[in-house]
């Protein structure tokens, strides 16, 4: 098996693909993702879509919490803003999805940038609780303008592929209709899948590049010790606010994706504290501070939930609970176990596997 290339200079540490295996891995991953919608049935295709939404959401939280160390329990607020942007702008102005996605991100980023300055003065727990407050506040605002958001009833989310009204006359067919490209049948779900795949790849690429760039190193320094970072000449205010902006942008995009996927959204559930907690535990499960962790955690979480529901149904003493509660409970146990016994998460397990094979047949 291949061992790591010798690191001789700093640039070696920054290369995207340290060796051939990383490239091969990426090719395998992308081609699996491309083939998936034509293999999977409807149920698993939906799960795949949800997985990609979760990857984008988790990666955005990873930038904030994993890279910069700012704990946010209000991540669901940014997703809610994104989702409602998609719903309101789609319904009232009939904007197409490719305009709504960046718009959702920008609106969420705006709110994130407003919260950023708080992070300059607050730390750790104080920040975590302020972000819970943000979540409550955002949900309250969303519920108190029922003329736009329909309040507690919820709102349908249309997906236009062109400005509404001219939809029928345009060259593009409606997004919801099944179309055929190169002999492949593209249903609504499959179209969403490919749209999400592009968004996911972009998010992951951006996060990876942030991590290996100067701003990412500044974030890591702020996470490890902000005073020390400031002494070294790092503008810690800028690092924190940037992290908040970028993170909430992608969270908003994830929210819009979620709205497109669900097609009908309400404020809470799903955008409650449980969602924030799920995202935090996903990145803990995956491994803090790594993009790999966000992606792996999100995929394991999404594909594990149906499995956990299945297990939950088999356990007789849990029959009092709803299936959602059962799977959340089992998930809670899994996460607690990881926190206590495997602090590095899936990333730690992956490292151990890699080391084992790198040193094979020797034990070290």
């Amino acid at each position, binding site marked *: 098996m291949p061992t790591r290339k010798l690191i001789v200079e700093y640039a070696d540490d920054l290369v995207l693909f340290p060796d051939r295996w990383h490239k091969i891995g990426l090719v395998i991953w992308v081609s699996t993702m491309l083939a998936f919608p034509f293999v999977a049935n409807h149920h698993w295709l939906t799960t795949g879509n949800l997985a990609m939404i979760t990857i984008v959401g988790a990666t955005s939280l990873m930038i904030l919490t994993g890279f910069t160390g700012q704990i946010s329990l209000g991540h669901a607020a940014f997703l809610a803003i994104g989702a409602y942007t998609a719903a309101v702008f789609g319904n009232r102005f009939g904007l197409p999805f490719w305009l709504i996605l960046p718009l959702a991100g920008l609106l969420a980023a705006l709110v994130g940038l407003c919260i950023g300055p708080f992070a300059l003065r607050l730390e750790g727990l*104080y920040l975590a609780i302020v972000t819970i407050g*943000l979540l409550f506040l955002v949900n309250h605002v969303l519920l108190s303008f029922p003329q736009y958001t329909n309040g507690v009833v919820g709102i349908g989310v249309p997906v236009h592929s062109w400005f509404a009204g001219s939809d029928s006359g345009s060259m593009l067919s409606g997004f919801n209709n099944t179309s055929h490209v190169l002999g492949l049948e593209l249903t609504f779900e499959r179209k969403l899948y490919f749209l999400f795949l592009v968004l996911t790849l972009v998010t992951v690429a951006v996060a990876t590049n942030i991590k290996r760039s100067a701003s990412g190193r500044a974030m890591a320094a702020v996470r490890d010790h902000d005073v020390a970072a400031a002494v070294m000449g790092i503008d810690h205010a800028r690092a924190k606010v940037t992290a908040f902006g970028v993170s909430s942008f992608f969270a908003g995009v994830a929210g819009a994706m979620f709205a497109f996927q669900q097609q009908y959204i309400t404020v809470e559930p799903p955008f409650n504290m449980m969602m924030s907690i799920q995202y935090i535990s996903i990145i803990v499960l995956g491994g803090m501070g790594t993009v790999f962790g966000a992606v792996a955690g999100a995929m394991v979480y999404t594909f594990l939930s149906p499995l956990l529901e299945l297990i939950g149904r088999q356990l007789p003493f849990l029959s009092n609970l709803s299936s959602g509660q059962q799977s959340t409970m089992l998930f809670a146990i899994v996460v607690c176990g990881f926190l206590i016994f495997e602090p590095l998460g899936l990333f730690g397990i992956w490292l151990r596997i890699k080391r084992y094979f790198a040193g094979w047949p020797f034990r070290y």
Partner: protein
Amino acid sequence: METFLQLLGSGLALGAMYALIALGFVVIYRASQVFNFAQGDLLGLGAFLMVALNSAGLPWGLSLLVAMLLTGLVAAGIERAFLRPLIGRPVFVTIIITIFVGFLLRTFLVLVWGPQPYGMATPWDTSGSIDILGATVLLNAVAATVAGAIALTLFFLLIKYSRFGVAMRATASDQEAALALGIPVGRIFGATWFIAGAYAALAGIFLGMFPRSVDVNLGYIALRAFPAAVIGGLDSAAGAVIAGLALGVLEVMTQGYINPNLGHFGQNFHAVFPYVAMILFLIIRPYGLFGREEVKRV
């Protein structure tokens, strides 16, 4: 004026409960720098135990004490099983683990008692009320305020004068130095969790009384007590009590005077009001009213 007094009365009763819950947060935070998100579910557990013990035939006062004791023991057990192995790990780890432990606890409550609400028995007339200065105040509210005051006084006496209280304060100010002086820091952690659990049970029992009832969602009220702990300063017990009382009164006043004037936006505005107050307050004082400003060394 009458409305004002009435609101003040129920505000103080709510505030006393907030103060008790916030004190639970602060006690644990001071000793071990852990913010216990499971506090709300301990509160629910206490209330359910009280209902169960009371219906099993125990006299009211005794079942109150036993419920507090049992909840305290559960809290100490949680500390031993889940949080002791995590000492020295980053903040978010303890946040997540307490949230999930709270979730497991709530699941346990659903499994044992089911989702339906229970009424909380009281030795006095449950829906009775008395007139104070022309305002009608529920007996339950009076009892809650009195019980809160007694519990808080006891806590401050314990902290100030007992040997154990000194040990607790020593642990709070420097764990390693306390350990070097022979203070059993691990046992202090257990004891602080015990106190926090017992106080959570007390708060839960009084919160479960008329006009509310005991159900699995009782614990969500702890979410509303976060701001009290934060505004008071996470490591100041006195701050938690003052901020808890103030927020309780302000919340009820908001509900009475501000909500009706905000139109649609005012609906349930009092529920988010503590958070709005907290965010505004933290702009001015990032460490709360009496919180110690952390001095960082590089």
